[in-house]
């Protein structure tokens, strides 16, 4: 898949449960293809986790993710940005978030990755509710 008339590819998906294998590919013209995956850790605040249960506020969650992705792509001059986020139960060691970015050069791809994740964690209506392991 390639971008049309210079517009970046922007794709957002909010999916039930842990994320499967990546399916996005680097766009034509990309010199960098960056894939960040957020994984549920076994410990949170020093306590053992079984899972995180992610909560969204549809349709606002997807709308805000899409808005943030489009802004990030425009600001950084990206070729593509793909966002996938789980809702519901995601167990330890499973993937709850994936951000895939295609850019001409690594500099803007790396900057976009950090800026997007920082803004998502600050602003987007998504919440994780811990399920603790028995003590």
């Amino acid at each position, binding site marked *: 898949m390639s971008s049309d008339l210079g517009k970046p590819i922007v794709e957002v998906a909010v999916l039930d449960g842990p994320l499967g294998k990546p399916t996005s590919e680097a766009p034509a013209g990309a010199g960098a293809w960056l894939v960040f995956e957020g994984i549920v850790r076994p410990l949170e605040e020093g306590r053992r986790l079984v899972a995180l249960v992610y909560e969204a506020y549809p349709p606002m969650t997807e709308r805000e993710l899409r808005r943030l992705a489009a802004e990030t792509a425009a600001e950084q001059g990206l070729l593509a940005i793909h966002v996938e*986020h789980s809702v519901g139960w995601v167990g330890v060691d499973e993937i709850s978030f994936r951000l895939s970015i295609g850019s001409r050069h690594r500099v803007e791809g790396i900057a976009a990755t950090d800026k997007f994740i920082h803004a998502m964690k600050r602003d987007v*209506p998504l919440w994780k509710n811990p399920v603790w392991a028995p003590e």
Partner: protein
Amino acid sequence: MQVTVLLFGPQATLAGTREVVVEAASPTAGAVLEALADSTESLATSLPASRLAVNHEFVDASHAIHPDDEVALIGMVSGG
């Protein structure tokens, strides 16, 4: 004006409910936040860093709220 405010995540857990009905002195987002602080003590410390969404869009304090609007408190978010 009575306004129902939807709660999510840790704020719903703190308040012990998924929605709170408040009596706002005036039909604005700012007044609703003040009413939330007054009526639900468990939310008070998280409110300064929270925002209201009306009909799925973030709004500022001066935004007018109408009777059929869907109002949600968006705070303590933790995506990713």
